[in-house]
């Protein structure tokens, strides 16, 4: 995740300690030290969902799936995550609110020392449920809204899903939970971007998470509606512009770019152009500390059956299963050649990523997209939209970052 609001507007947020080693300069409660080196763990605690979305990376179904972890198993798993030092557990799905023991699991995670957060489609989030989750220790609820009503409902396969998601956002806010809106961009909803930001500003939503499409689950089947490089660059520029405009007007929205670390390089270039070299240097140094794409390092996923994945989007390959051994033992077992190589991927990247001057803030972007499109986990990310000049190839004059 790249915080546009932090990097361009200097907005203070709880995640800065994790993202930029910036805990010391923050007034917000921060995750520090040992936990900074452990992954944020997404737990798809169920595969069941009440919606059927076109882009669902978990390929969720409307009926329960076999092998879901029980309440007792979930608690043990959460204890083991806490013992390993994982800073955050993100309850996801499917739709996590279909689990009637979700509040109990959130309370257990909180008591164990994890920071529990929630990713939901919002349609089942009532004020009563949100209040119970808040009391259990939930720290954040992110609600998916993929465009204005027409586009969102078509995407999510259910008329009225937009209105119900907004009702869920309202319920979360009424319960006093920090609340965010998650939007995955495609050609179908790109034109809705400004309206979605206006909507969340109007509703007083705390956070805007802009996701690039990753090619996992059903997301792999809709690559044809993914943006062109030119449209992607334009969309990221609009996110940067909108964030600054809203902050100038007093809306302190936390804006995050997720899923494409070419954005890191673009942000440095944007800062250089719009804010000057000193600000570009500051942005670049934060992003170097952030370290680029987190696959297999700072993000992990455990599915409803206990399979451990390199990211939440990469469900087609599993490192192992927490029913066989604890998560920490699987995650630190670098006898797995792929896991080891991902953690030193600079030595393995090929194509345009191999000699890109922004490799240290991007690290090749999505390895899953590289695999899905080029059959090579170390090939170039097909979503990279940087120009040859920005990448600094063939003796181009732009130096690596603004530290010149």
């Amino acid at each position, binding site marked *: 995740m790249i915080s546009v609001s932090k990097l361009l507007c200097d907005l203070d947020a709880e995640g800065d300690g994790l993202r930029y080693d910036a805990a010391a300069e923050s007034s917000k409660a921060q995750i520090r030290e040992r936990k900074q080196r452990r992954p944020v763990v997404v737990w798809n605690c169920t595969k069941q969902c009440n919606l059927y979305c076109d882009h669902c990376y978990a390929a969720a179904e409307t009926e329960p799936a076999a*092998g879901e972890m*029980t309440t007792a*198993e979930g608690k043990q798993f959460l204890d083991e995550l806490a013992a390993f030092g994982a800073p955050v557990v993100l309850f996801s799905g499917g739709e996590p609110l279909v689990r009637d023991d979700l509040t109990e699991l959130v309370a257990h995670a909180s008591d164990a020392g994890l920071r529990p957060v929630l990713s939901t489609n919002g349609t089942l989030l009532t004020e009563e449920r949100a209040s119970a989750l808040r009391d259990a220790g939930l720290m954040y609820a992110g609600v998916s809204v993929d465009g204005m009503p027409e586009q969102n409902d078509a995407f999510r396969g259910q008329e009225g899903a937009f209105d119900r998601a907004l009702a869920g956002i309202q319920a979360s806010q009424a319960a006093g939970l920090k609340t965010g809106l998650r939007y995955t961009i495609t050609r179908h909803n790109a034109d809705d971007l400004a309206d979605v930001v206006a909507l969340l500003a109007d509703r007083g939503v705390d956070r805007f998470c802009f996701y690039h499409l990753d090619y996992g689950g059903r997301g792999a089947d809709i690559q044809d509606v993914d943006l062109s490089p030119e449209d992607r660059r334009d969309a990221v520029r609009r996110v940067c512009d909108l964030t600054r405009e809203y902050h100038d007007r007093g809306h302190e929205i936390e804006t995050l770019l997720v899923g494409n670390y070419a954005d890191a390089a673009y942000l440095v270039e944007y800062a250089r152009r719009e804010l000057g070299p000193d600000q570009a240097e500051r942005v670049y140094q934060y992003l170097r500390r952030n370290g680029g794409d987190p696959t297999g390092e700072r993000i992990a996923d455990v599915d409803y059956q206990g399979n451990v994945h390199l990211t939440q989007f990469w469900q087609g*390959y599993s490192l192992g299963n927490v029913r066989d051994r604890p998560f920490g033992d699987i995650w630190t077992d670098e006898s797995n050649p792929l896991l080891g190589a991902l953690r030193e991927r600079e030595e393995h990247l090929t194509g345009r990523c191999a000699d890109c001057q922004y490799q240290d803030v991007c690290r090749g972007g999505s390895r899953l997209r590289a695999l899905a499109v080029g059959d090579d986990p170390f090939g170039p990310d097909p979503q990279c939209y940087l120009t040859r000049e920005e990448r600094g190839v063939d003796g181009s004059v732009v130096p690596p970052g603004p530290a010149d």
Partner: protein
Amino acid sequence: MVDARSDLRNVRDSVIVVQFARAHLSGGPRSQGLKIPRRGIKDATVSTDMSDPDDGAVGIDAAVDAPRGDVTREWELFVREESSEPLRHAGSVSAPTAEIAREQAAQLFGWSAETLWLCPADETRRFTAEDVSLAGRTAERTDGTDDGSERGDPNSAECDGSRGERA
């Protein structure tokens, strides 16, 4: 949705062994910036008896029998990087057929491995010492007491009936 059942019948009771051509291994293909061509992989299917082992194993008799896949079949993956090294478990891939599993495994590990084995997860019997599996670790933590409401049971007929196919 993929209905993999017809494909599954063709590969049931089999272990897939993939051997990489030696010519692509010396010097390390990745270090040379080479991508291993598919035709450099030859495979052989070896029939094997997948019936449950005898009860002779001492202390390693706790079964971990919750499924690892549902709609799409899961394949346990083993790799070896040098012939002098042991074959190591390297996770699993989801694929409806053995051939697709082989392709996926080769994409992920072909740059490194000289040998890949793929075993259907739903035909793989997993046994551990009593306190090693999640169920065992959970029992140790809860000491057999009921700690509240309970959702699901991975060892119930409902859960272990699918073995890689959707129930």
